[in-house]
């Protein structure tokens, strides 16, 4: 089967980026938007065709789905066998990601035509969106880890550009810098991991790196450093890069601030695509994790579990609706990481892997929907804060219904999509580690609680005094909402195990009623609590806050993680490292240079009289010099 056309899935957004970036200001802004949306539409169609051909027409060869190299070119030949390729690799997870990215991106493009209407820099926005889509697609189809790294950084750059879209606002500039620096710091680990891995295996290629039987691993397993084998170090460092992009604790601090960007950007980048790049990275490297460094997988499971609990607790206390959604994203990505961490490799044991990818898929749908719905609400009331909202269900009927679908889906209420994927994760956690299972159980309840706190707070509760009557968003914004709502409602019925699994061999996953029923019950409990507290304005919530006292304050201030970072960077790093280094630079390094310059200036002051302007002085010097040279030559010859 020939998939060569699939390079156009990447190239179309890239061409659109170049075109609208260079010539966008020649047309009306709306035309740029249309060009971007059309380009993405083409990519989306091509992705659907690819998925259809890959999964349904070509299907399984032998007993597993094959990894197809659709296109490949050598970009940099380093040594005879170490080279960096650029290409397109299609396997179950990359094809799935192509569909997810282009679908969500297309919805955000269409939505932005309405949401960003009349904004300054409309065509710039579309050109950056196309750049982001191109980078993200390049990341998922990478044939080797270095191509992945290149596109990984491109994703970081385009995220930086889009968070800082409102660059007149100091808070947006600060947020974009924070996002870039934190993820860049994490990427340092990723790069070191790549270098370690490739130094011992002498290859970047996924074809060899993801095959545990491959002979390239013979050297790396026997070397160890500080009590851990080098491959474990490499895999942990690679995970550090993934943790930075996926905003895992303690590198999560950039994601809530990234909500300064326009809402469609939050939906596309900071909910559905970029932040799952870390999950995707771990999934891509999964065969090595499971075969050579199960310790690293345990670390991943615990970090994922801890982040999901931690972020869910913070999400319960925030009032900025986009921040609630951001913490909810952290929590859900924690779920995915945990599922990968507890997964096995073969057949049924690979349930966690499959569940993680499944949750990634459904989460992209319902979280993009939540963000776009939140954008629609913000569009209507011109505020991000829950206190300025309430009773909106009458004014925004479509937003209300779609938001409700997304809330039910994320809370894990059957038959919505989130229920199925979350159930698989809980089953995988149950089989592996009971403590992690208990944590995820609590998180499931918390998720239902904070989502319905948001839902009731926005659409029910007391209606504040609006300056002008809120009105439903235009059709161009509600159509993506409806599309995503359909996705959130029905994608759960896809038999995901037949398509995506750790060893690429299909298997049937079964519903475990003993786990599904309690998880639905705890979700309903969370919803009931939210109903009781926020359905109508009452004093119970504030009384509860007073009763919790200090612990509420700690959670409300996000466990003071930002303050800890500031303390470490400003007080410790700044005073103990930066200041002495700056002193050394100013006084020792600059001093040496200034001293040399001073000596030369002074001595030239003394000897500048030699250049007298009198021809005879020069002539005399020249002749005497010539005579001295002659004498030297004669003396040496004799």
């Amino acid at each position: 089967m020939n998939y060569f056309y699939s390079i156009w899935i990447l190239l179309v957004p890239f061409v659109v980026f170049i075109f609208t970036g260079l010539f966008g200001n020649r047309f009306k802004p709306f035309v740029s938007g249309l060009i971007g949306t059309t380009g993405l539409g083409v990519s989306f169609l091509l992705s659907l065709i690819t998925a259809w051909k890959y999964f349904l027409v070509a299907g399984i060869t032998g007993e597993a789905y094959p990894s197809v190299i659709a296109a490949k070119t050598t970009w940099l030949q380093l040594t005879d066998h170490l080279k960096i390729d650029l290409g397109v690799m299609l396997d179950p997870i990359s094809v799935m990601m192509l569909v997810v990215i282009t679908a969500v991106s297309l919805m955000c493009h269409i939505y932005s035509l309405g949401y960003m209407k009349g904004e300054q820099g409309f065509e710039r926005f579309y050109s950056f969106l196309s750049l982001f889509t191109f980078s993200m697609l390049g990341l998922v189809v990478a044939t080797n880890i270095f191509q992945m790294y290149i596109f990984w950084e491109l994703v970081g750059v385009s995220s930086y550009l889009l968070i800082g879209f409102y660059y007149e606002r100091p808070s947006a500039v600060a947020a974009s810098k924070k996002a870039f620096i934190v993820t860049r710091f994490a990427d340092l680990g990723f790069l070191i991991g790549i270098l370690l891995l490739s130094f011992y295996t002498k290859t970047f290629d996924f074809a060899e790196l993801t095959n545990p039987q491959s002979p390239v691993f013979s050297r790396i397993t026997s070397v160890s450093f500080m009590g851990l084998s080098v491959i474990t170090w490499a895999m942990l460092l690679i995970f550090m890069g993934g943790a930075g992009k996926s905003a895992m604790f303690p590198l999560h601090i950039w994601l809530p601030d990234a909500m300064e960007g326009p809402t469609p950007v939050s939906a596309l980048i900071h909910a559905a695509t970029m932040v799952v790049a870390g999950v995707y990275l771990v999934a891509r490297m999964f065969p090595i994790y499971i075969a050579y460094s199960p310790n690293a997988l345990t670390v991943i499971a615990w970090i994922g579990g801890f982040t999901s609990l931690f972020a869910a607790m913070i999400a319960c206390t925030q009032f900025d609706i986009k921040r609630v959604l951001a913490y909810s994203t952290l929590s859900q990505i924690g779920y995915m990481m945990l599922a990968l961490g507890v997964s096995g490799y073969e057949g049924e044991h690979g349930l966690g892997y499959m569940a993680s990818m499944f949750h990634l898929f459904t989460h992209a749908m319902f979280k993009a929907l939540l963000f776009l719905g939140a954008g629609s609400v913000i569009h209507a009331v011109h505020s991000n804060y829950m206190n300025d909202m309430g009773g909106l269900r009458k004014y925004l009927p479509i937003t209300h219904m779609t938001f409700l679908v997304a809330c039910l889906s994320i809370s894990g209420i059957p038959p919505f999509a989130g229920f199925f994927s979350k159930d698989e994760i809980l089953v995988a956690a149950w089989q592996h580690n009971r403590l992690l299972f208990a944590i995820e159980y609590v998180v499931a309840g918390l998720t239902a609680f904070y989502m319905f706190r948001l839902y009731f707070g926005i659409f029910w509760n007391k209606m504040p005094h609006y300056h002008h009557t809120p009105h439903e968003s235009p059709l161009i914004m509600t159509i993506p909402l409806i599309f995503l709502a359909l996705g959130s409602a029905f994608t759960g019925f896809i038999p995901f195990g037949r398509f995506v699994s750790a060893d690429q061999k299909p298997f049937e996953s079964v519903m475990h009623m003993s786990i599904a029923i309690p998880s639905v019950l705890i979700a309903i409990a969370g919803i009931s609590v939210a109903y009781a507290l926020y359905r109508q304005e009452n004093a119970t919530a504030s009384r509860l806050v007073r009763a919790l006292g200090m612990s509420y304050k700690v959670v409300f201030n996000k466990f003071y993680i930002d303050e800890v970072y500031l303390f470490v960077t400003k007080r410790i790093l700044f005073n103990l490292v930066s200041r002495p280094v700056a002193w050394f630079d100013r006084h020792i390094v600059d001093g040496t240079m200034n001293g040399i310059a001073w000596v030369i200036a002074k001595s030239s002051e003394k000897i500048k009289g030699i250049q007298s302007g009198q021809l005879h002085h020069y002539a005399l010097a020249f002749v005497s010099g010539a005579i001295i040279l002659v004498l030297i030559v004669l003396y040496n010859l004799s």
Partner: protein
Amino acid sequence: MIHGIPITHFLIVSTVMFFIGIYGFLTRRNLITMLMSIELILNSVNINFVVFNKYLYPDQLQGHFFALFIIAIAAAEASVAIALIINIYRRYTSIEADDVNEMKY
């Protein structure tokens, strides 16, 4: 060889011419005179080329041609120098080297 005149006589003449040229170049203040001194130096070198060619390698011609080239270059050099001197005169109404001393620290 040329009617019994030994090579040393020619060399003495050229050496004397050379040092007269150097002396004139260093002591005279008039630019034209200095230019004439330089011509003396060049011509003393010419004599050397021709003499060495004639006495040491009588069957070859490199020395003669070198002398011809030097004469041509000397002519070119003289024309450039005189053009410079005329311009200097227009500006300073003087061709004394001492008066042209603006290019200094």
